[in-house]
């Protein structure tokens, strides 16, 4: 027992040491770059061997309307968590709207299969506990690539267990077979929505990791500013002392 415990601790220490060592020569904006790159390529392999084939099979056996229902169903189940986070961020009106969405879609939308709330001008919001922590003043921290689940900032990675648990309330279903089936269905549904796009990503970039990282971080910044970050465009045709950075009307 003791030995097992010791082994466990020392393994943890080893992993931590390796992790820190990998940060030694990394650029300041991405201290975990070496680890992140390794995890990124592992995720790519997982996607190619598991997620993508599952999604393709799913598309092959389901008609498009069914896939929309499935997408709506899972979307509906995370509205309560979005509502709670809006409340925690001091936006009671949004929180109420999310709750209304959940009630309307769960009843008149036949258990969430139909998203009639959106048509009734109750738009879906994008909130999670990571953003709530941000509103509360916690900084993003460095970029971290999670195994399988993809990119996060350190702050969001810490919030992730909570987000993962409550985003999808069906994780509380006690029947294991049902729970597993739902997990697979959601994976297939999410991945199917973006089939064909990994090709665009492959084609668009010289360095896929770098492009994805910059993409993710730009997007987090956008969310921090609640969709309205300040924008500046430089004009490099002008000389140094004339350089103007022009703001723009939004």
């Amino acid at each position, binding site marked *: 027992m003791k030995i097992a415990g010791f082994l466990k601790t020392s393994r943890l220490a080893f992993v931590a040491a390796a992790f820190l060592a990998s940060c030694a020569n990394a650029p300041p904006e991405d201290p975990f770059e070496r680890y992140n790159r390794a995890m990124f390529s592992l*995720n790519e392999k*997982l*996607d190619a061997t598991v*997620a993508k084939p599952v999604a393709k099979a799913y598309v092959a056996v389901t008609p498009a309307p069914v896939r*929309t229902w*499935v*997408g*709506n169903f*899972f*979307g509906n189940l995370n509205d309560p968590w979005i509502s709670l986070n809006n409340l925690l961020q001091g936006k009671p009106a949004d929180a109420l709207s999310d709750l209304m969405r959940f009630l309307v879609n769960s009843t008149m939308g036949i258990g969430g299969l139909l*998203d009639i709330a*959106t048509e009734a001008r109750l*738009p*879906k*919001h*994008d909130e999670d506990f990571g953003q709530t922590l941000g509103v509360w003043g916690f900084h993003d921290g460095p970029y971290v690539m999670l195994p*399988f*689940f*993809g*990119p996060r900032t350190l702050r969001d990675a810490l919030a992730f267990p909570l987000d993962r648990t409550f985003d999808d309330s069906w994780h509380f279903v006690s029947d294991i077979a049902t729970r597993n089936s739902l997990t697979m269905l959601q994976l297939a549904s*999410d*991945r199917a*929505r*973006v089939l*064909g*796009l*990994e*090709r*665009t*990503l492959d*084609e*668009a*970039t*010289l*360095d896929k990791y*770098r*492009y*994805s*990282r*910059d*993409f*993710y971080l*730009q*997007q987090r*910044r*956008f*969310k921090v500013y609640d*969709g309205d*970050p300040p*924008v500046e*465009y*430089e*004009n*490099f*045709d002008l000389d*140094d002392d004339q350089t103007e950075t*022009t703001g*723009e*009307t*939004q």
Partner: protein
Amino acid sequence: MTKELFTCCLMLASALFTGPAIASEDAAPDALVRHVSEEVLAIVRSDKAIQSGDTRRVLALVDEKVLPHFDFRRMTMLAVGKDWRSATPEQQSRLTSAFRTLLVRTYSNALTQYRNQTIDFKPLRASLDDKQVRVKTEVSQPGAQPISIDYSLEKANGSWKVFDVIVAGVSLVTNYRGSFGDEIRARGIDGLIASIEAKNKSLETAQGG
């Protein structure tokens, strides 16, 4: 897996190439964006060949309707960043042409993924003599929250040109700055040009057209 990223890519793709395309010189920027988006999407919706991924046809459509309304020199400058200044005019023009090809090849294909998203055009909040405006739109698809797609336009020689497309807060153009900068530091501006050109060549082989 990086679900949001993929979704954004799709949106970004349909965004870039549903961009502007009326000929009239003094068209208001928001009217321009709206007109071109609607025209291009109508064609995509009715063209089975495009929907099944015919690269040549998409490229022809984009070339005719969309590209005249983009300022690729400005886009390339913003993607490269301050190293643009140290590039010779010849390097600048090669960079522009390589980057243009990369964008067109990459995102034209994504237009074939367009199905039943709907676009909501936001009212423009700009005074008349502004040289730069941002036209905001929102794209909705079933079962997901809408994604914002904004176009930055600049007035030059009497007509509005798009020089940036921002999808869900991510600038399609400046998002390249990091990787382009890495490449320039490692291999110089000629190295960057060579990398983009090599990438374009491999795309051409892979896609045909």
